[in-house]
């Protein structure tokens, strides 16, 4: 229990540090949202000064951070200049869309990678293994951006799949089943890109972990006792190989918000990625900070979940 408490405190401290760091970056940087307004002759410098004072832009770093913390406590996470609304609800809608995409693709990626990696280790050197490692090596050298754009061109040319957004125009009037089908069809392309992009790394890790565990003495002993191959592989070898995979799974969870940024932009999925990009171009300070920190929360939480899972799975950590 002390171990978990320590990990939790560590995560909390890390988050606090990250928020300070994010604020520090933004206060060091020149320029803000209101700078472009200065060029507009219709806005007087008094109005501008009043706006800046209203949003506490002109205050020193520590004051702004304190104001932001207060706003965080109210569940607002600061104020978006461009949307004229608190940041948190804006982020929540986008984060929900992103999570819909990434949770589906992460689950799918693991469901494919786990059996593929285990088989590949089991039939090491045979054709299953060769095909799997060859395909993953091939996918590994194709950068996500090339993969995404390639699939997008394919979808556009064949007209099999919708290529942008999350719903079709006029889908609100459709019955529920049709709406769901529409959403699913829109999800296919981004999910496919994400799954294919994550696949090679997952398969490689599963394969090497299981291959290593297979060589362990106790697995061989169990095999000599006549335990079924399948049971041996899934119950014994995979269990022994679990530790690095749990860490990797924690990383998958951590990347739920931040991993799909590029794919969302390419397929114009209305998630956190395009939203953040827009905020960056508009210099919408608190949206950027909020987006970065929200995805940091996921990354830290992912690590923490991995710690908890490791604690549960590995007795060696518990007795430590």
């Amino acid at each position, binding site marked *: 229990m002390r171990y978990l408490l320590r990990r939790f405190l560590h995560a909390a401290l890390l988050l606090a540090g990250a928020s300070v760091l*994010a604020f520090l970056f933004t206060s060091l940087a020149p320029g803000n949202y209101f700078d472009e307004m200065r060029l507009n002759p219709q806005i007087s410098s008094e109005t501008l000064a009043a706006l800046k004072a209203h949003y506490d832009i002109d205050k020193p770093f520590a004051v702004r951070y304190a104001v932001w913390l207060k706003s965080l406590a109210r569940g607002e996470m600061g104020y978006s200049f461009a949307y004229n609304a608190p940041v948190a609800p804006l982020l929540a809608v986008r984060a929900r869309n992103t999570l819909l995409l990434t949770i589906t693709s992460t689950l799918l990626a693991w469901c494919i990678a786990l059996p593929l990696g285990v088989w590949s280790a089991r039939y090491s050197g045979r054709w299953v293994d060769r095909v799997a490692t060859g395909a993953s090596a091939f996918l590994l050298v194709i950068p996500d*951006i090339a993969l995404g754009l390639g699939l997008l061109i394919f979808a556009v040319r064949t007209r099999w799949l919708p290529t942008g957004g999350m719903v079709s125009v006029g889908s609100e009037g459709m019955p529920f089943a049709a709406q769901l089908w529409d959403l699913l069809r829109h999800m296919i392309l981004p999910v496919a890109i994400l799954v294919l992009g994550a696949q090679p790394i997952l398969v490689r890790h599963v394969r090497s972990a299981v291959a290593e565990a297979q060589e362990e003495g106790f697995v061989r002993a169990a095999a000599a006792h006549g335990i079924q191959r399948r049971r041996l592989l899934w119950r014994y070898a995979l269990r022994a190989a679990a530790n690095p995979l749990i860490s990797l799974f924690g990383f998958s969870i951590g990347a739920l918000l931040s991993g799909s940024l590029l794919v969302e932009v390419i397929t114009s999925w209305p998630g956190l990625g395009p939203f953040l990009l827009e905020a960056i171009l508009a210099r919408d300070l608190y949206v950027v900070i909020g987006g970065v920190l929200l995805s940091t929360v996921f990354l830290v939480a992912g690590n923490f979940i991995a710690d908890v899972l490791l604690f549960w799975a590995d007795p060696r950590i518990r007795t430590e």
Partner: protein
Amino acid sequence: MKIAPRRQRLIVTLLVLLHGIVLVGGFVAPYDPIRQDRDRPYAPPARIHFADGPGKFHLRPFVYSQRLREDSFDQYDDDHAKLIPLKFFVSGASYRLLGVIPAKIHLFGADEETVNLLGTDGYGRDLFSRIVYGGQISLLAGLLAAGVSLLVGTIVGSASGYLGGWTDSIAMRLAELCLALPWLYLLFGVRAFLPLLVSPVKAFLIVVITIGVLGWARPARLVRGVALSAKERDFVRAARGFGASNSYILRRHILPQTKSVILTQAAILIPQYILAEVTLSFLGLGIPEPAPSWGNLLSSLQQYSVLSSYWWMYLPAMAMVPFFFGYLALSSTLQEGRSAAKIDL
């Protein structure tokens, strides 16, 4: 290093060759990458032929002249009556070889008309030339950023591992913090608050320094690990016993031992940073037009019309693949070599 010297040499040769092609880009590319030809927007890639319509074989490869179709702005027909023979080592637009030597000779070209082997973009700029020149910028950005990361990482890591104490704890807490932030988001966030509309050279430097500095943490941690074990080695203790100064020990005894870690990290970081530049430029946060980079060449694909009609605009993405293959193969052989060396001990 003993593990597969033959394979390693092969991979290094491949990488040197690929980079060499890009390095002498001015010679390989037939045209100036920013020269526009408003009469030839979105010309498709010219097919290279050896045999003409009646089946007569030509020893010298040729392409057909492309004619803009009547009432169209982007549809071209091959004019089968007009053959344009490809010539090698022709003189054309002047450029500076390796950025210094003024030259005019190009690997290939044609006398009468422009030949766009990979087609043109919306301004009629030769895509092949833009890919080659874009490679110069993207690769240089990746290499320099990796250099920055490794430099900062090595300095911080070796100092923190060797000196220990509070230097070490502060540096490592900071590194943990940097690793906790999602890298791409952090990159975007920092880029967001640096000036957006700047000259290409400035933008290039901003991109390189941002990517490089933000990536210091991982190499720093690895170098620290090496330095920690290195400082307990007998010859280091002996040197200290003989009164060697800290900086002398760091330079002569600690840093040489980090060489293999740094090499492996370089092979991992360079493609990652090339990709980071490509991503930034693709999203309009990196190197601006008209200077070409692999990223901003692809950014036109964000328009549906380009995506559906001009498939050759995708070709810059294919140009990256051999480079990534090379770096990936290199890093995996380097890692194999390291784990084998560990077993030897």
